[in-house]
């Protein structure tokens, strides 16, 4: 058969070869079918490790307890026992090395997250003792009168 008949076939073969070579270089070697098969598991396996290495920022109250035992015991023995240190003190990160000290959120808005009175039936929010921040001593920090580590005690002077 004449060569012009074969020519398109060679072109197609060359394109296929080019794609295969490019694929070899562009697709990471660990790309493949994971545990969930083609439909849900087609991925680059190394990415799982990347996600596992994300830094933990919230270290939980247990971490704080190692140095601040008396503070931990105080709040865990109070009606605020359910609140973790980092909710108000911010994430521990690598404290005490970095940051050296944590920024404490003493704002009224922080307390109002739970103690702004919303009388909702069907939600435990309705059972939390609450106030209206607009009328309850506006402008004053809550911690002036209420000690957050144990709300049964008087507030602290700063």
């Amino acid at each position, binding site marked *: 058969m004449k060569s012009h008949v074969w020519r398109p076939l060679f072109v197609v073969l060359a394109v296929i070869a080019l794609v295969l070579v490019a694929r070899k270089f562009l697709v990471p070697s660990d790309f493949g079918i994971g545990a*969930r098969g083609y439909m*849900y598991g087609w991925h680059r396996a190394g990415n799982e490790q990347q*996600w*596992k290495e994300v830094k*933990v920022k919230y270290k939980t109250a247990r971490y704080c307890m190692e140095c601040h035992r008396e503070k931990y015991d105080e709040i865990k023995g109070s009606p605020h026992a359910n609140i973790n240190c980092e909710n108000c003190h911010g994430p521990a990160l690598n404290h005490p090395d970095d940051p050296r000290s944590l920024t404490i959120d003493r704002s009224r*808005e922080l307390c109002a997250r739970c103690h702004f009175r919303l009388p909702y039936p069907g*939600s435990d929010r309705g059972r939390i003792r609450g106030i209206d921040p607009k009328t309850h001593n506006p402008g004053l920090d809550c911690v002036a009168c209420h000690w957050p580590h144990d709300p049964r005690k008087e507030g602290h002077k700063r």
Partner: protein
Amino acid sequence: MISRRSFCKKTLLIAGGLAIPLSALELFDPKRLLAEKDEKGARWVFLVDTQKCVGCGYCVKGCKVENEVPYDANVTRTWVERYIITKDGKTHIDSPKGARDGFPNKGIDIGHGKLEEIRDEEIDKAFFVPKLCNQCDNPPCVQVCPVGATYQTADGVVLVDREWCIGCGYCIMGCPYGVRFFHPVYRVAEKCNFCYHRIIKGMQTACVDTCAFGARRVGNLRDPDDPVTKVIMTQRVNVLKEEYGTKPQVFYLGLTKEVK
């Protein structure tokens, strides 16, 4: 010329051959058999108690910080919705800033900085519903990804490969729960992954650790002694948008028909 006898014989042979399913011809694959026999490892699931949630939004704050989602951008991996069902049968839903700062107003946020005031006497039911990725058993967001940048791990968590995502947004459109969004910094698809870096270390997710009321819990469905598994197996739990066939793995206690 084909005889009647040989025609019948051949027809039966072909029909019989077609009836043998492909799977019957497949040789034993030891890896697959092992996988089907004993599914070792975890299957992470989530349990939300809508009665216990008070809408403080600490979970949203904790999640944003832990997972480096820009704090002031109006995107979040998890959020809390407020449902107020009034006596006239209307359902009012809002989630100001995803409840990052809780719910600082009694009025319902109807957008453009406006609030719709609802008097306490008008309320029939009112409650909060935390939302997060359902880590579906049939994740539609994974199916639609054209490049294999999003996938499900063996323990059921759906992850996004930030280096491989091309930002086409199919997954964001494909998720019926609206949990996916574009990360404003990385400019790729972003979603809740049950704090994968925490749960594989035996920790709780950031939202579970910041929740002061036990409204959120994460557990391993393959561990029959896991307290979360026990609740899911014995209590009246429900899931969101079951009709989509996605098999969501975030279970809710106290869900009502108004919750979408």
